[in-house]
């Protein structure tokens, strides 16, 4: 009886997970590979020949590859600042966390008012005499500036999540290690490289996994800023499911996102290991 009680306690969450997560997942896999006549790859063929799919895949990967390192560096820098306890640190902390409370779409709209053809940035450039008519940041012809605007908006919006995780991770590192290193004359750089970062690895791992999964899901910011000119994978699932009403192809895109999330999560778990004997 005693050995069964953990399972009994787990049962409600297992049932909920199976009903609300497992079953839809099975449905999605079935939908992506089946039609009236049984097994088919037609939906995948449709997806692969779709002119939006490859750009969406490319944009999503590019966005992650660019945004993630920047966010990580920024978050660690901000966390170190917080650790140093300058004046008004409480105020800074809350200011840095404000974007966490703002919805993705709202953030996109805020940045749209900045980067729009007649937005704040162009008004500023024109009034400073740096440009005659402003720069068409969001024009479909300028993939680079579109990527740039989405990257900036994403960094602004989501760095605070990494920051909060990293701050939490830093606060559980006992100060003794750092002080011991100081006693032995280690410089700031050495302490950061050999003491703080290794001890921070578990938090970084969590932050990386969470941020990558969330970055794979990013779409409202790009949608608000560029419409369909800068497609992202999750935007494609939405487009196929809601606007084109084709759940089969939509499921296929969703499975690509799932495969990417699983792949990167595994990669992080294997590579960003916490060093032996760190604890």
């Amino acid at each position, binding site marked *: 009886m005693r050995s069964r009680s953990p399972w009994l306690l787990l049962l409600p969450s297992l049932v909920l997970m199976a009903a609300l997560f497992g*079953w839809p997942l099975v*449905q999605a896999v079935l939908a992506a590979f089946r039609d009236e006549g049984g097994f088919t790859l037609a939906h995948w063929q449709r997806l692969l020949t779709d002119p939006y799919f490859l750009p969406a895949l490319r944009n999503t990967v590019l966005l992650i590859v660019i945004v993630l390192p920047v966010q990580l560096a920024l978050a660690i820098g901000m966390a170190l600042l917080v650790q140093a306890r300058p004046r008004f640190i409480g105020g800074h902390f809350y200011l840095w966390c404000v974007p966490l409370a703002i919805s993705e779409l709202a953030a996109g709209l805020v940045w749209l008012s900045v980067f729009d053809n007649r937005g704040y940035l162009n008004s500023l450039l024109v009034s400073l005499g740096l440009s005659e008519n402003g720069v068409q940041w969001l024009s479909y012809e300028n993939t680079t500036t579109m990527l740039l605007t989405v990257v900036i908006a994403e960094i602004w919006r989501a760095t605070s999540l990494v920051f909060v995780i990293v701050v939490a991770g830093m606060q559980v590192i006992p100060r003794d290690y750092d002080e011991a290193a100081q006693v032995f004359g280690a410089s700031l750089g050495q302490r950061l490289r050999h003491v703080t970062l290794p001890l921070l690895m578990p938090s970084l791992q969590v932050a990386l996994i969470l941020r990558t999964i969330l970055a794979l899901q990013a779409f409202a910011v790009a949608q608000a800023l560029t419409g369909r000119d800068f497609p992202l994978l999750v935007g494609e699932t939405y487009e196929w499911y809601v606007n084109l009403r084709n759940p089969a192809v939509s499921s296929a895109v969703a499975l690509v996102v799932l495969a990417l999330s699983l792949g990167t999560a595994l990669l992080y778990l294997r590579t960003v290991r916490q060093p032996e004997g760190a604890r």
Partner: protein
Amino acid sequence: MPRITVSRRAVLRTAGLGAAALAAGCTGFATTGGGGMVFLSTQFRPVDEAQRFRDLLARTISGVSYVTIEEGPFAGQVRSQVDAGATRIGLLGGLHGDLAPLADGYLEDVTDVLARLGDHRWPADYLELARAGSDRTWYVPWATASYILAAHQDALENLPSGVDPAALSYDDLLDWAVAARRAEGRPVLGLPAGPKGLLHRFTQGYLLPSFTGGQITTFRSAEAVTAWEYLRELWANCVPSSTTYDFMQEPMESGEVRLAWDHVVRLVSAPRQRPDSWRMLPSPRGPRGLGYMAVLAGMAIPKGSTDPELARRTIEALSLPRTQVELLRSNSFFPAVAADLPDDLSPAIAMEAQAVRRQQDAEDAILSLPPVGLGEREGEVSKVFQDTFRSIVLDGAPIRSTLDGQARVLQGILDELRVPCWAPDPPAGRCEVS
């Protein structure tokens, strides 16, 4: 969609969750208070348009609440409610393409309503459409709309000499766009190529029929290649932000665009603000004639309507020439019945009415319809035209291979649906890209 939701619902039910709560979550539309009989419609979805129509409805008849819904969910709602024997809708409003597919057992026969209203004289074409290929009438034609050109006075000054703006050819339009671009130092022609723009209607109902005489059957013909080459040239003289324009009236008002093509409803606010600055023109003609698309909206009564009597009275009230002129004033949809347009129409509406009439009455007019009978797959057919535009015009892909590839996608959808073609293609048994 159906497969997933049904199974998930079944599981949730076994999990003991109330199906009622789920149904409430799935209905997908909310009545905005007021109660009364639900008039579910795919038309006038933007908030201000819906509000203007609600005001009109309140002045016309009481006890009807107007609820809008997107085209895809519309068919799903009606089918599931009628199938379940629990219709909560009183009256339906939608385009021909929304209503005609429901004629297979989801709509009441309204032949008698039409007979009682007989003296309003609908055009025979509309009544033919409303029969949806049967011998009974399934909806009452309600209103029509179309797509036209709008030109600012500044642009008209750059019109190449000897060209009549009210009888343009596609080549004239291109020459005009080039001349205007040179004169202004920037492109001034705008097309609604934004995410919610209706540029695919331009290719479906105007460009391709004018060049090829067809919409679907001629999709990959040699003439279609010429049409896309033309559009590429035209696009080179368009405002680059056209890919962000959903409603042309906005860039027209801001001055970014001086020459535009769009749906009448999406143009009207610019000439309404400054009637002296704008002229409304019929769409251009190509080698095969003047291709134009007529959007026909109708009203239908679903099987098991909550209040068939009130629904009939509402249809009758909204079919009066007087109320249809009111609708033209408030929502810029043109009367479906033969109504004399009064002289006191606002200049913007009067200009539009004139341009639409010239387009329809042209001797070489080729009438196109928005896709019929595709139901929730219509979006995918629109996507074929949108993707073709994106590949050929924006990304510069080779025309022949793009058309061949997209024709395969189009044929795949049509094969699954097994529907006949719609105007201007011949209504053969199965629609096929030749």
